[in-house]
């Protein structure tokens, strides 16, 4: 039996990339502008890598797709459904109504129907109120009468006890049989408003998710691919098509994560800083245990506050298209950039803007465009600009480091040619080949995860037992999501004691990750 092949596809706003992997070898890669009809672009990209590697589609064990579809739908306020919200929490929580802080343009599309009804739990699991099924039925009929078929249900302390959300869901489904439904506990995390917002966003995307997934399915069928496919989520792990149809919000911001995971793969490093230098900006992130370090700040998506965990990224205005300006005292690089117009406006491409790329070519360490066009640049200006480029990169690295020890640095992205020196604070700078398709590689190698985020009583259980319970649950969640059981590892354990409360209540967050259980090809 040979090692199975897998394909990673990254559908970005600008490019659609694909890579074909067997085990850890990259057999072929593809990069082309994203097509207006996304399916066509995917068919082309996959067809191209299969053709070039001469691999029949039946040898594929899986296709992994990273996409910005769902993020963009929210950012651009397109293709969203109106959502009816039912919050179980009364008599508590009435002082902040659902949709409280939503921007007007999204509220117009998604908002308009919300009810707070009796229900919810205290942190220790005692109910705040009991469900009234008749009231839920009335609300469901009202939603249906107003043409609302997407519903989000939230409940106070649902991560501690989800039973009311589940019971309420049954009632709603009886009244609206084809309802698109999200329960807030399915999206985890403590923080009622943020979790409720995530549930609303998810329900608003459910209609679109069915269409996107079926267009992916169709594209693969057209290529005769029968292997399962998956979509990458923002923590570097995978969702099955069925999960995407139920939880499209989990794909938000998977792009930077895939890029960092791809960098980890290409460099064989699990702990490093990753510097992704593009045309306009450089993103610096940290890999810890092979995954991006996550940001602890609440994240706004399209102006709606959520508590998704996103990769902790520092963006600075340094890229291949950054404009170079000398005011006599110092050379300024960026943040203004010619961006994607670099192919016409940079000096080496016959334009008349001095960019960071021109500096790297003139200094002799990059070979891009027409070298002759920059041979007469002032040598001292070039030397000072090269210094400034490296100083900016070093400062960004330093700001992302968490200790004074030297870190390994992986460079990816089209602008990585700007760097040619050892960087201060870096033990080693690694520029992998294939760095341009790190995104698609990150999608291809993604694993599957399981999480727990709940409040445990250390006084009742003891710390060791509570952590053991949480880890066991996280592992079984990972296996349920498709992980090969023997490969599952705990990658993150976080304990946050509840302030001002005696009783040893601690919020515990555990994440387990494992390799996707793929059927080996014959």
């Amino acid at each position, binding site marked *: 039996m040979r090692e199975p092949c897998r394909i990673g596809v990254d559908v970005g706003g600008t490019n659609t990339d694909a890579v074909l992997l067997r085990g850890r070898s990259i057999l072929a890669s593809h990069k082309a502008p994203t097509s207006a009809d996304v399916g066509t672009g995917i068919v082309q990209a996959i067809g191209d890598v299969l053709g070039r590697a001469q691999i029949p589609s039946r040898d594929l064990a899986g296709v992994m797709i990273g996409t910005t579809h769902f993020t963009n739908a929210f950012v651009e306020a397109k293709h969203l459904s109106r959502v009816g919200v039912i919050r179980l*929490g*009364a*008599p*508590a*929580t*009435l*002082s*902040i*109504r659902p949709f*409280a*802080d939503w921007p007007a343009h999204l509220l117009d599309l998604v908002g308009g129907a919300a009810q707070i009804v009796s229900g*919810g739990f*205290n*942190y*220790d699991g*005692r109910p*705040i109120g009991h469900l009234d099924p008749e009231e839920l039925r009335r609300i469901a009929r009202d939603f249906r009468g107003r043409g609302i078929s997407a519903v989000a249900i939230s409940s*106070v*302390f649902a991560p501690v006890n989800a039973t009311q959300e589940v019971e309420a869901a049954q009632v709603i489904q009886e009244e609206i049989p084809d309802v698109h439904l999200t329960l807030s506990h399915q999206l985890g995390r*403590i*923080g*009622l*408003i943020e979790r409720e917002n995530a549930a609303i966003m998810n329900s608003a995307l459910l209609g679109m998710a069915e269409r996107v997934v079926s267009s992916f399915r169709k594209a693969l069928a057209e290529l005769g691919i029968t292997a399962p496919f998956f979509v990458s989520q923002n923590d570097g792990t995978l969702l099955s098509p069925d999960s995407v149809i139920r939880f499209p919000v989990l794909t938000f911001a998977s792009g930077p994560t895939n890029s960092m995971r791809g960098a980890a793969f290409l460099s064989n490093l699990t702990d490093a800083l990753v510097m992704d230098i593009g045309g306009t900006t450089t993103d610096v992130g*940290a890999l810890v245990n092979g995954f991006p*370090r996550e940001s*602890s*700040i*609440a994240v706004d998506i399209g102006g709606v*506050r959520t508590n998704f965990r996103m990769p*902790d990224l520092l963006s600075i205005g340094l890229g291949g298209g950054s404009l170079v300006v000398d005011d006599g005292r110092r050379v300024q690089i960026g943040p203004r950039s010619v961006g994607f117009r670099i192919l016409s406006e940079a000096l080496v491409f016959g334009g008349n803007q001095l960019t960071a790329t021109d500096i790297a070519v003139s200094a002799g360490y990059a070979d891009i465009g027409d070298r002759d066009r920059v041979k007469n640049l002032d040598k001292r200006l070039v030397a000072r600009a090269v210094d400034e480029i490296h100083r900016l990169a070093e400062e960004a690295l*330093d*700001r*992302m*480091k*968490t*200790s*004074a020890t030297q870190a390994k640095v992986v460079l990816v992205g089209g602008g990585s040619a700007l760097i040619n020196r050892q960087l201060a604070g870096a033990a080693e700078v690694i520029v992998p080949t294939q760095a341009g398709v790190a995104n698609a590689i990150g999608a291809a190698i993604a694993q599957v995860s399981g999480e727990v985020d709940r*409040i445990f009583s250390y006084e009742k259980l003891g710390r060791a037992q509570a952590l053991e319970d949480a880890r066991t649950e996280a592992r079984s969640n990972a296996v349920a999501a498709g992980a090969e059981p023997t490969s599952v590892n705990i990658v993150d354990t976080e304990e*946050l*004691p*509840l*302030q*001002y*409360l*005696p*009783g*040893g*209540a*601690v*919020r515990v967050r555990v994440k387990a990750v494992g390799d996707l259980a793929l059927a080996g090809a014959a």
Partner: protein
Amino acid sequence: MKIQLEHVADLARGAAILGTGGGGDPYLGALMLRQALQDHGPVDLIDVTSLADSDFAVPFAMMGAPTVLVEKIPNGNEMGAALNAMERLHNEKARAILCAEIGGLNALLPIVLAARAGLPIVDGDGMGRAFPQLQMVTYHIYGVPAAPMVMTDEYSNTVTFQCASSLDVERLGRQVVVAMGGSSNICLYPMHGADAKRSIVRSTLSLALGLGRTIRESRRSSGDPFGALLGYLRTTPYYQHCRVLFEGKTVDLLRETKAGWALGQVVVEGTGDCRGRRLEVQFQNEHLIAREGSQVRAVVPDLIALLDSATAEPITTEALKYGQRIKVLGISAAPIMRSEAALAVFGPQAFGLDHPFTPVEILNP
């Protein structure tokens, strides 16, 4: 002036800075205040001197765990229930609502009650910042008893505390908070205008508003929020001694929980002008002391605020993590909070620190 919708964001950000790491995330308070102002109209912000000596005024706060509050949000009626119970106990109608704590969430909630009750809010509070316990207020220090205290939950279940001392109110109150699900509404330190004028830290709501407004405007114009922030603080009556004590990134973080307190310390490694140096900030819910080696740079009750080094957004101890880029601000506390009587209640010794209180302007000439 009137507190209106447009002031809410500034007030919340200013209150978060004055929270010195604790006091809870004001975000939910801001959402509650917005809804209350929408439903009930603007709130009069009045100077304490405009209260008659005989006017009855009642402070309001929430007590409990911020982590509970982010789930079990109040309904609003329980706030009014607490106020009504207090009025019945005193057989007197309240003329105004007072803040107990200007730092964090509790800066905004009394304004929610004021909006719902149709009463003015007095410009000032009992802490000039945030503190973790009920007796750590100037009302207590200057002779206003905490009792009777009224505590309510989301069902408007009401418990009244008639206690011998403010410490007993704190101790017994804590037990009932747990029984109420970890988060309760309280009215306490009921007082009259004469007491309020004597014991309040004046003008702190205006100051919080000014802090928030300064950061917002500077981001739009100069892009130098710290310069603007220090410039503004220097014009204020209490906070004029202010310094950027340190600039760096967090490289170590210790947290533990003891008897319900979030204890710990964060180590900041210097960057920029502070390269090669290290600052340690110790906290118990709020930041208590900032030390560089054996040298103290600022100590409670002076304010120690940790802000994002680019945006000047305040960072709470709960949101602290490795690798954050921060600036540490040391800010002088109001003179009323630096008296001997005040230091006995919330000076360094009250938190088990052996360093005597030394003003931030003397530590950093």
